[in-house]
C-alpha cells in the first residue's frame, strides 16, 4: 500500500503525465498522420452498422416529408414532369443519333476501345471533415478492390479522390478540400488549369494560361493524368470576383448519399519510349572496313537505333 505522501505526489503527477502524452499525440499527428487516421478508419469500420441505424429514422422522415410535399401539389408536379419528360425524350433521340454517329466515326478511324473502368458503389457512412477539411467516408463492403487515388463520382460529376483505404471503408478527399489539386481542362477555351480546393463550396482555378482566361459559364472537365481519366464532368466556371475564377461543381458536395468509386488503372497513360529518344549504343569504329566480325552467323540482328530514323 502506498503512503499518503506517495499518493499525493502521484495525484499531482497524473495531469502533467497525461498532458505530455497528449503532446506526444500531437507530434505523432504531425509526423505520422496516416497512423492516426488508420485508427480512426478502424473505429468507423466498427461503427458503420450503428451509423446506419442512427440515420435510418432521419432518412424515413425525409422520405415522408418529400412524399407529403409531392402529394400537396400533384397537379403542378404532374405538368412539370410531363414537360420534363418531353424535353428528355428529345434529348434521348439526340443522344441515340450521336451515339450511332460516334460509333461510325470510331469505326472508320479504327478506334481502339477504351478499357471499361471497374467501379464500386458505396453509401456515405460519415462526413468526417471537421472544421478544416472536406472528406467523407464510404462504406463499400468487404472484398473491394479500391486503391488510393481512385476517382469518386456522384450522379452528376466529380466528387474527389480516395486517400485512405480500410477493410470496409474508404476515405474520399473532396475536390473542395484545402489539400485537393485536380488537373482540369476548360471545354470552350481549351486551356488547362489546376482546380484547387479552398474549403469553400466552389474550388478556385489556378495556373490557367494568362492569354486564355477561363470564360464565364464554360464547362470544366478533368484532364487525363495518371489515374485520372480525361473528360469527367467537374462543373462550370464562374467569376466570384474579377480575376478570381472558381468552379461551381456539378456534384452536390453538401448532400452526399450514394457515391461510385472508379478504378481507371494507373498504367494506361504511360508514354512509350520515342525512337528518337532512345539512347543509341555506340557503334564500333568503321564497321565495314575489313572483314565483319561474326560474319559466319546466319542472321545478324539489326543495330539498335537504325530503324525509324
Amino acid at each position: 500500500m502506498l503512503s499518503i505522501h506517495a499518493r499525493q505526489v502521484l495525484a499531482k503527477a497524473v495531469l502533467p503525465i497525461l498532458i505530455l502524452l497528449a503532446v506526444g499525440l500531437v507530434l505523432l499527428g504531425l509526423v505520422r498522420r496516416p497512423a492516426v487516421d488508420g485508427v480512426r478508419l478502424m473505429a468507423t469500420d466498427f461503427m458503420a452498422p450503428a451509423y446506419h441505424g442512427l440515420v435510418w429514422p432521419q432518412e424515413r422522415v425525409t422520405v415522408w416529408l418529400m412524399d407529403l410535399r409531392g402529394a400537396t401539389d400533384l397537379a403542378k408536379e404532374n405538368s412539370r414532369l410531363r414537360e420534363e419528360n418531353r424535353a428528355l425524350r428529345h434529348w434521348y433521340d439526340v443522344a441515340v443519333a450521336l451515339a450511332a454517329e460516334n460509333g461510325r466515326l470510331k469505326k472508320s478511324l479504327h478506334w481502339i476501345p477504351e478499357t471499361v473502368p471497374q467501379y464500386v458503389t458505396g453509401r456515405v457512412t460519415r462526413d468526417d471533415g471537421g472544421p478544416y477539411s472536406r472528406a467523407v467516408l464510404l462504406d463499400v463492403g468487404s472484398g473491394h478492390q479500391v486503391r488510393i487515388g481512385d476517382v469518386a463520382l456522384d450522379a452528376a460529376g466529380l466528387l474527389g479522390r480516395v486517400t485512405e483505404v480500410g477493410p470496409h471503408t474508404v476515405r474520399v478527399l473532396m475536390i473542395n478540400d484545402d489539400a485537393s489539386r485536380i488537373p482540369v481542362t476548360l471545354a470552350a477555351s481549351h486551356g488547362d488549369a489546376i482546380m484547387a480546393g479552398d474549403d469553400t463550396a466552389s474550388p478556385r482555378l489556378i495556373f490557367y494560361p494568362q492569354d486564355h482566361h477561363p470564360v464565364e459559364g464554360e464547362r470544366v472537365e478533368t484532364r487525363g493524368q495518371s489515374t485520372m481519366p480525361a473528360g469527367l464532368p467537374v462543373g462550370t466556371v464562374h467569376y466570384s470576383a474579377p480575376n478570381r475564377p472558381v468552379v461551381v461543381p456539378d456534384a452536390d458536395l453538401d448532400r452526399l448519399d450514394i457515391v461510385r468509386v472508379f478504378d481507371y488503372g494507373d498504367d494506361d497513360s504511360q508514354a512509350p519510349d520515342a525512337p528518337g529518344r532512345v539512347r543509341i549504343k555506340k557503334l564500333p569504329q568503321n564497321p565495314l572496313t575489313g572483314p565483319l566480325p561474326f560474319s559466319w552467323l546466319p542472321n545478324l540482328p539489326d543495330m539498335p537505333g537504325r530503324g525509324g530514323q
Partner: protein
Amino acid sequence: MVAENSTPHLHSAVEPRQTFRRALDMAARAAMPSLFVMFCAILLSAPFGIPGQAQLQFGIAMCTVWFWAYSRPRSMPALAVFLCGLVVEIFSFGPPGTVLLSLLVIYGVAHHWRYGLSRLGFIAGWLIFSIFAVLASFFQWALVCLHAVALLSPAPGLFQAALTIGIYPSLTALFVWGRRTFANPDQA
C-alpha cells in the same frame, strides 16, 4: 464521558446500507459527465448532415470538462478527461491530439482555480471559459496551418469558438440540474 459519545458516526442513522447495487448506481452517477461526452462524440460522428456537427463535438467536450472540473472534480478526474479526449479524437477527423490537449489544459485550469471559480458569478466564469475556448480554437488552427504549410482562413476556428461559447449557458443549466439529481452520487 458524555463527550466521548457525543459525536456519533456521521449520518449513521440515515445512510443506506452499502450494497452492490448502490455502489453500481453511485459509479454510474459519478461517471455520468464522462459518459455524456463520449455519447455525444459518437452520436455527433454519425452522418446526420447537421451543420457544425464536428464543432459541436469539441464544444460539448470543452463545456462538460470545464463545468465538472470546477464544480465536482470527483466526477471528472484527470484520467476520465484523458479517456473522453481520446474518444473525441477517434471519432473526429481534426488534427490529432489537439482536442485532447485542449481538454487537459482546460481541466487543469478549472481544477486549479476551482475555489475562485465557485465564488465567481456565472457571467465571470463564462467570460474566462470564453477566453480558453478561443485559445483552444486558435491552437487548433495554428496546428492545421503548420501541417498544411499555408496560412488558412481562421473563420472555421472562430465559428467553433463561437459555438462553444454559445452552448455553454444551456449546457450549464443542464449540468446544474444534473449535479443535484441524476449525476449526484450522494443520491444513490
